[in-house]
């Protein structure tokens, strides 16, 4: 059976259609994991060490960010947050404001753990207040409210960030994802629930 030019071009179009399904299918399969990767993105407070000199508290917090899914394309743009020191017995909370900015930018590949180390100098009036808690026999815990600002394929259309709350006394702590937000540029802000 002989094929005319039109049939040959149709065969070529079939080949292109099949190739585009293979190439586009891989991107689509990766995209299908995008939202679950945001929902499952883990922030862990691996260790927290602190010491006091009576007026200020020096601490070192080590976090890891893990993407447990197979999604490729998540990048950490900014690690930002605030922290409080709270008296566990008295339930008194001393707000310290913003955490120092951490050098944490980079890709969050599948299964990869990005380490973020934050040195904290909790001094000033709040430092004295926190030390007062210790002097009164109270135990203190650090409460971190952290926003992970992410760079994704949606960057040109929207911003994505995940909010967490981490608490720890010393050693490893616990973190909980509070929300995932998708901010659309046209609205100035729009909610996207990951939780």
């Amino acid at each position: 059976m002989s094929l005319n030019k039109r049939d040959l071009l149709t065969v070529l179009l079939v080949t292109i259609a099949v190739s585009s399904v293979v190439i586009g299918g891989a991107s689509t399969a990766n995209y299908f994991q995008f939202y679950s990767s945001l929902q499952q993105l883990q922030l862990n407070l691996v260790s927290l060490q602190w010491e006091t000199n009576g007026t200020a508290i020096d601490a070192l917090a080590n976090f890891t960010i893990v993407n447990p899914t197979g999604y490729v394309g998540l990048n950490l743009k900014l690690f930002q947050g605030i922290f409080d020191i709270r008296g566990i017995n008295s339930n008194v909370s001393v707000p310290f404001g913003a955490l120092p900015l951490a050098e944490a930018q980079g890709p969050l590949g599948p299964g990869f753990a990005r380490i973020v180390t934050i040195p904290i100098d909790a001094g000033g009036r709040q430092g004295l207040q926190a030390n007062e808690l210790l002097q009164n026999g109270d135990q203190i815990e650090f409460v971190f409210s952290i926003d992970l600002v992410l760079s994704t394929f949606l960057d040109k259309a929207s911003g994505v960030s995940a909010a967490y709350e981490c608490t720890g006394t010393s050693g490893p702590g616990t973190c909980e994802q509070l929300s995932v937000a998708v901010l659309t540029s046209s609205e100035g802000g729009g909610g996207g629930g990951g939780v």
Partner: protein
Amino acid sequence: MEAQSLRWFVATETRRSATLIILWANAMSFVLAQAVYQRTFLSAVDIVVLGAICFLAGMISLDLGRALLSYLGAMSIALVLLFILAMLPFATGSYAPEASTVMFQLWLSIIFTSVFPFNFIMLLVVSVLGSGFGEKYL
């Protein structure tokens, strides 16, 4: 035997047109998918590839009127398929309804601005040129 059964798809002009629209829509849809699901918007390479697909499909259609209608049909199917694939993760019910609403609007905006109006018109023109080329040389 297999060639005979494949022949069935192009045995009449109507079947050939239907086959063409499905192949055309399929090819465009997944070229658009690999672009928007990775970069949100189309790159110059994506536009060139889409242009090549439209030119080829226009050539196969041979007729200007049929090329126009086939293009409109294929583009509609491609965009609907692209949108359905974009919203498919939300069909599982694992996400908050607000998330679905925000992403629905966002994807509508992304897909619309990726294609309309410039790329849509340009690809239409390329399809028409392809049909003219096919009419003359096939």
